[in-house]
């Protein structure tokens, strides 16, 4: 456990000081300030930031995850030769990267909103939820990136697959849902929609935020079903469980692969 914390600590320092992380932080800082400035109002700013967050956070986390894994292969060898348990090394590295990425994201978005007075506005909970889902998405996609990397020795191939996974979850999946809706329009689709949403972390995060931001629209007609499914306490718990499963499952798989792997 101790060694896990130590590995995490140093990898956190390392990633946090990388110029990519700094760029990532600056990107969110500048774009959040810009969104707030151009939308002029905080709830509009949150909506725009949501679009950015749900797209960029998973993408950057995926790219960083793959890059970090392949770049630290040799250093991992050195670490593996040290008297430390294997899983501690990998989990420590994972946490170091995921936490520093979420940290850059949270800091980058939080500072502009803080300066616009988020704490005295009504939107403080909406914003907190947005930050929270952004951070969880970082964890999920770093985990997926690590898993993909360990399954592919070839870094070009690993990189390609990781980007493809992101593209599927961020864009293609929704297109498939829409196609499904169009083809089965005669059937009651609400339950299917709920299930399909729960299965994709990006969609699930989006719906969780929507329940705060667009509650008026989601109250209409059939959408009430969604509110009953995701808006209730048990729905919230299921959503959170599903999100954490998305972060935990890949990393558990990754860890079991890492245990049996030759370096």
């Amino acid at each position, binding site marked *: 456990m101790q060694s896990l914390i130590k590995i995490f600590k140093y990898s956190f320092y390392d990633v946090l000081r990388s110029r990519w992380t700094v760029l990532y932080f600056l990107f969110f800082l500048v774009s959040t300030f810009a969104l707030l400035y151009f939308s002029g*109002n905080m*709830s509009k700013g949150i909506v725009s930031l949501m679009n950015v967050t749900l797209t960029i956070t998973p993408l950057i986390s995926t790219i960083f995850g793959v890059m970090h894994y392949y770049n630290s292969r040799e250093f991992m060898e050195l670490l593996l030769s040290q008297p430390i348990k294997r899983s501690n090394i990998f989990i420590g590295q994972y946490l170091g990267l995921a936490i520093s990425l979420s940290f850059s994201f949270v800091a980058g978005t939080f500072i502009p909103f803080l300066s616009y007075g988020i704490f005295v506005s009504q939107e403080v909970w909406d914003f907190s939820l947005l930050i929270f889902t952004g951070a969880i998405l970082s964890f999920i996609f770093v985990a997926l990136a690590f898993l993909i990397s360990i399954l592919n020795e070839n870094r070009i191939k690993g990189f390609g697959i990781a980007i493809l996974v992101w593209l599927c979850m*961020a*864009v293609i999946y929704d297109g498939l849902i*829409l196609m499904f809706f169009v083809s089965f329009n005669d059937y009651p689709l609400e339950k299917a929609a709920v299930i399909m949403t729960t299965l994709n972390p990006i969609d699930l995060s989006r719906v969780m935020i929507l329940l705060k931001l667009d509650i*008026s629209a989601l109250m*209409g*007609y059939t959408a009430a079903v969604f509110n009953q499914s995701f808006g209730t306490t048990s729905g919230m718990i299921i959503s959170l469980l599903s999100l954490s499963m998305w972060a935990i499952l890949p990393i558990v798989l990754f860890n079991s692969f890492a245990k049996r792997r030759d370096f």
Partner: protein
Amino acid sequence: MQTPIRNNIVLFVCVILCFLTTFLNFLNANQIKVGSQCSISSVKQAIIAAKKWDTIIIQNGNYKERNIVVNKPLTIIGENFPVIDGENNGQIFLIKADSVTIKGLQIQNVGTSYVEDRAGIRVSIAKNCLIENNKLFNTFFGIYLAKSENCIIRGNEVTGIAKNETEAGNAIHLWYCKKMLVENNHVTGHRDGIYFEFVTESKIFNNISTKQIRYGMHFMFSHSNEYFHNRFTDNDAGVAVMYSSHIYMHENIFADNWSTVSNGILLKEISDSRIEENIFEHNTIGVYAEGCARLEIKHNNFTKNGWAVKIMGDCEDNRFDENNFTANTFDVVTNSSLSHNLFEKNFWSEYTGYDLDKNGVGDVPFRPVKLFTYIVENIPPAIILLRSLFIDLLNLAEKVTPVITPETLTDNMPMMKEIKW
């Protein structure tokens, strides 16, 4: 020049005469006290004992009475809100005479009947009544006026305990009335908060209607009325106004009307009316218009509604001018590919155009109807894809080359900044 002066003199004499007769009536009038310590201990006895134009003062206490018929012009005033309790067994006041005043009473528990529409105070074929500062609780119908004229209903608090639509009455219910003033009332927990049918030339203002299980306000066939400074919030189905013309609604607040069928305001076959300076906030649908014509909708704020405006294809010649559409999920929806309504000089927070000549008006027209709104109209569950990247891309494609969205429904002069008035 002579005729107006003579008219004036006639008018003057009339006024003096009127004044004198009332004054004489007052001289004639007595005060009757009702209370446990008084010789008269029930309201009914007092009414029998009273002569026309008398004043009955009801002292604080608990009066278990019902079916009290007021059949002569009387003023009934409660001291410190005496309680008139119907014990869930019947209607309490029935006013059948002109010029009756009821003030400062607490009227409660009329009970539910499926045979008659029971009410806390029922006014039937009467003129000049004043119902003021009463508290009504659990009265099925609160204040019910039929075929009456020139009455004032002011400052009452009507609280119901309605659970479902079939077993509920309305808080303030007017039927075939004219020249009424309904002001400063606070109504809650009924089927409809304020209900008008065939009511004309009336003013409804400063009322608060919340948490009704159906409509905060509901009127039909009621022309030439003015509604202002009212608040309609948290009603299950919002406000519904139907089959009326020459309505002027201004400075009302329609907020938090959320449910699967909830509208800030539902306009059905309303014509030649003005809707100005209202606030529509946090409603499932801000304004829903069906079969409306020649409406002027100006200077309203639509904020954070699910659908700000849902306008059906059978609406014609309506104008939306200088409204603010801010942070709504959908700004405008319609079910037709043609639009016969005009949107101009509105502010749209979704607008992304530019203003090169700096005249405050955007240089590119704004299309408030998006492709996704169409998708949701046809496949309601698709709303779960709201704000997803895929949908944004679809919307963008449609924006560049409109195929499905109505080409005529545009705001050609979108404002760059929120409009103040």
